[in-house]
């Protein structure tokens, strides 16, 4: 009977050690899985943000800094110095309520430049920033 009890205790001790080791390994693995998931999401969002910023740059240049005209191309809205547009997670134009990303462009008409920024609304982080310049040729009055 004593031998049986000793065997059981030994197995229990072995099992406890194995569980301890497993718990440590599991913590590391779960952290790695979380990091991989976050990295994958961040990469996808960054790619989308770069494309959105490039599109905004192209729209601003084609409109020679006219924010209203650029906003029409980007399906956003604009006032005299700021352009804003909202996009879903896969880069489609949408309303502010259902947006995952917000694109904003602050123009300096005299310098003929604008700062284009893409924000992720979930954590309000800046994903990508781009400075655009254009040349508006002088036209006869």
């Amino acid at each position, binding site marked *: *009977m004593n031998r*049986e*009890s000793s065997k*059981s*205790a030994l*197995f*229990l001790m072995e*099992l*406890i050690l*194995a*569980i301890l080791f*497993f718990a440590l390994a*599991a913590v590391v*693995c*779960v952290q790695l*899985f979380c990091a*991989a*998931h976050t990295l*994958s999401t961040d990469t*996808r969002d960054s*790619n989308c943000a770069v*494309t959105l910023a*490039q*599109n905004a*740059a*192209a*729209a601003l*240049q*084609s409109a*020679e800094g006219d924010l209203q005209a650029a906003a029409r*191309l*980007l399906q956003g809205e604009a006032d005299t110095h700021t352009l804003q547009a909202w996009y879903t997670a*896969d*880069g*489609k134009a949408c309303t502010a309520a259902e947006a995952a990303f917000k694109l904003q462009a602050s123009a300096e008409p005299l310098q003929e430049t604008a700062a284009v920024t893409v924000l992720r609304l979930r954590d309000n982080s800046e994903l990508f920033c781009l*400075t*655009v*310049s*254009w*040349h508006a040729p002088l036209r006869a009055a």
Partner: protein
Amino acid sequence: MHRRRDSATDFLFTLTLFCVFAVSSLLVVLIGVRVYRNTVESMTQNYSSRTAVAYLQEKLRENDETDAIALETRQGVSVLSLTRTLEGERYTTSIYWMDGALREMFAKQNAEIDLAAGQAIAEIEGLLIEEPQNGVWRITVQAADGDRTLLFYPKSAGGNVS
């Protein structure tokens, strides 16, 4: 009798602990499989559409010359034609969507070649090419992970990114 009961309790406790250990191991493996599968799926889906968009962007930049970019319909297919002069001859790079793939064909201008002979670049579900304003190109790549839209304003039309 008392000892026997103690021994049975020890055995049951050990067995339960072992079962918890086995279930936990299985859970960690399952979580790992799910994360890996999601990452691979996301990468695969992203790959086709991103490759197509990057390819189109580079081709447009490479052929950014006056009157080099045009949208045509050939053999019933919308074709983005990029024409340039090489050693005195005019050559056209035709980019279009056919049979589930983005395709490219490089040939002499006005050469009558079957578009099915074009080289497949990336597998996508569709390609939409528009010119919403004079000089501005809007290219939408339709892929399994959604549509990706690229706006392109050629330098030859006055564009200048910095």
